[in-house]
């Protein structure tokens, strides 16, 4: 029970802290003090108190989208193993439900962006849709291969790669983590795919889709985005954190890992430039090819003798 409560707290608060730590890391590399790591949480509270401004050209779709987005992301969180436990809803093929709940929320953010009638937001939506179509197959390829390996089609099999894959275990783990990490950068709209700090609408992907959202709508969407990053990071945790630790220890390991991932993201954002929009696809395909490597390693293990 305690661990369930801890997991709920993690979903509620850790996304803000991760965003805060990323910003702090960027500030560190830029030679600045930066805002407190709790700033995203303060911003959330501030935005929740504000009044809406809603464009007259929008319809009901625009109004309900933030709620749908946050509800589906929170629902998706139930299917993912967080700190030191199985998912709350741990069913066979839960990853398919997980992926499509997230797609559902993305579908609504896309049509909500187009609902505003702004040419910027339409452009952002088309970019986001493009990346999603490439990310989705890679994600399924990765998870389905890892699960086929253990014959157990729940997220629990992520932790058993080493014991099931024998000599291939380490390689599979490395590439699986890389796939998930690139996916965090894409889905979380981070550099080098997107630039969350820019004010230039023409270059934005995720940010431009929520240009018209304000107050609690904006707060919910930003929070949902943070949770999405947390969930994908949790999949990395499920692979990396060794099985058989005590509950407390693995919860600590989990939090340390979240911290590390945030620092790495922040460092990448400080040290690299963003990829040119037309070349982003090549970057996304790198992820697909890593997923293919996992698939082939698993195939080699299962059928190669």
């Amino acid at each position, binding site marked *: 029970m305690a661990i369930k409560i801890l997991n709920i707290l993690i979903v509620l608060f850790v996304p803000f802290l991760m965003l805060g730590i990323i910003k702090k890391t960027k500030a560190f590399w830029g030679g600045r003090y930066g805002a407190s790591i709790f700033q995203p949480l303060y911003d959330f509270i501030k935005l929740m108190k504000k009044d809406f401004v809603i464009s007259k050209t929008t319809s009901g779709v625009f109004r309900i989208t933030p709620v749908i987005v946050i509800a589906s992301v929170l629902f998706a969180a139930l299917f993912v193993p967080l700190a030191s436990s199985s998912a709350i809803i741990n069913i066979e093929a839960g990853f398919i439900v997980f992926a499509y709940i997230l797609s559902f929320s993305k579908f609504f953010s896309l049509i909500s962006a187009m609902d505003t009638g702004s040419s910027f937001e339409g452009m952002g939506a088309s970019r986001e849709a493009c990346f999603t179509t490439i990310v989705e197959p890679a994600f399924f390829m990765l998870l389905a291969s890892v699960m086929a390996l253990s014959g157990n089609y729940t997220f629990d099999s992520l932790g058993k790669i080493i014991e099931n894959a024998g000599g291939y275990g380490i390689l599979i783990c490395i590439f699986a983590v890389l796939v998930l990490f690139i996916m965090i950068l894409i889905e979380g709209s981070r550099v080098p795919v997107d630039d969350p700090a820019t004010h230039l609408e023409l270059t934005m992907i995720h940010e431009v889709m929520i240009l018209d959202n304000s107050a609690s709508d904006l707060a919910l969407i930003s929070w949902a985005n943070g949770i999405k990053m947390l969930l994908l990071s949790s999949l990395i945790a499920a692979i990396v954190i060794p099985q058989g630790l005590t509950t407390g220890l693995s919860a600590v390991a989990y939090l340390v890992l979240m911290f590390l991932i945030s620092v790495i993201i922040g460092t990448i954002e*400080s040290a690299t430039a963003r990829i040119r929009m037309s070349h982003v696809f090549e970057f996304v395909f790198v992820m697909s090819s890593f997923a293919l490597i996992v698939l082939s390693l698993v195939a080699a293990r299962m059928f190669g003798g």
Partner: protein
Amino acid sequence: MNWIKTKNNTKVNLNEIPTLKINDLREEIISLNKRPVGFFGKDWGYGTTKLFTILADDQNGDLYISSALFEQSEKEYESLTQVLPSFHIFEREFYEQFGIKPKNHPWLKPLRKNQKDYQFFEMEGEEVHQVAVGPIHAGVIEPGHFRFMCNGETVYHLEIMLGYQNRGIEDLIVKHPTNQLAESICGDSTIAHNLAYSKVIEILKETKITKRAQLIRTLALEMERAAIHIGDLGAIAGDIAYLMGASVFGAIRTLVINTMLEFSGSRFGRGLITVGGVNFDIDDEKIQRAVKTFSKVEKDVERMVKTMLKNTSVMSRLEKTGVVSQEKAHEIGVVGMAARACGIVIDSRFDFPDECFKNLALPRKIFKGKGDVNARFQLRYQETMESLSIAKRILEMLKNGYKEEVFTQNENLLCANSMAISITEGWRGEVVHIALTDGNSNLTRYKIKDPSFNNWYALALAVRNNGVSDFPLCNKSFNLSYCGNDL
């Protein structure tokens, strides 16, 4: 003689300027085929309009002046733009200010006024869509409307509609000729515009300013160049989300503008230059501090630029983005830094040097650029280092000699019936100020040309066939002025 030949920073008697028929002037301009620096009208009484043309011969440092008189009934002429595209923007301006129509101008659109009548280019096709940006800018800088004609993510053409900042500053200066007005023509070129204005008025008043004042002016101009270039290097880094560059260059720029603050009480050098010299002398203690600061700035800029140039993710964004070919740049009359980045040899500090710069006898560095963002980035770096070393050299000179007053009082009236021209190389390119006086020694016409006026069209060409998301990067690499264009 159909032309009167003169030099930079001189005045000519208005009566000596030949007055031709417009068709003859047109033929003359086409046969001379030089770069226009002035093409403006003046109300000549009884409903007539006089069109003055000033062409620059950059190789020899000569200026050619001629004029044509339009009778009240003459309301159109055959446009020059069809033959010499570099006149396109000048003819649009002349038409807007005096209503005399250049016939067969390819795009005779409003320049600064009547934007409601603006007819945008239209493109049709299933995949073609338009993206309208502005006039309010996301970073809340200056207003301007940009319209992209895109196919998916690729830009076919960008149309730029400006004029939101039109303050009528030329007429304001005629009414109240002050340094304060000249400083506010374009905030990031405060020194360049104020310097050009002060020179024009000094020429008309026949003031000779001291060597020390000239050195301080040149120092300020080079500091402005360094500060803006460093700031823009940071902005370019920011636009490609390379945060380290953005913050480091931002911090370095502060050192330069704070030195300016020490010299003049304003980070942008407002109030430093005045007609007759400069308002503030620089004492030895400040000189020492500034030399130290500039040495540090040189080192830091070099280190950061080298780091960026070694970073492949940075280079892949800068290279081959926003290319303006040398031929195109030459054809449309691009000036200044943007032109040098395309490999054109043009720099009015060397082409039309003033006395002080001539005495410094600096070698001219030719930049071999390909006209892309990378070229503009590297050119800015090269010019920053050059400006800092000039600044350090001038500081040494100020410390070791030239101990004299920095201000020369002169109560003379302006010379009557004259035209004075001053070309100053600001960080962006040539800043041209031209003043005309009447028989009673009053200013009757003041003409300003900021380099942005020539260069906005180069930006439109640069983004063709680039991704629409690369526009901000191209834009930042030029960093043109809205108010400098709108006046």
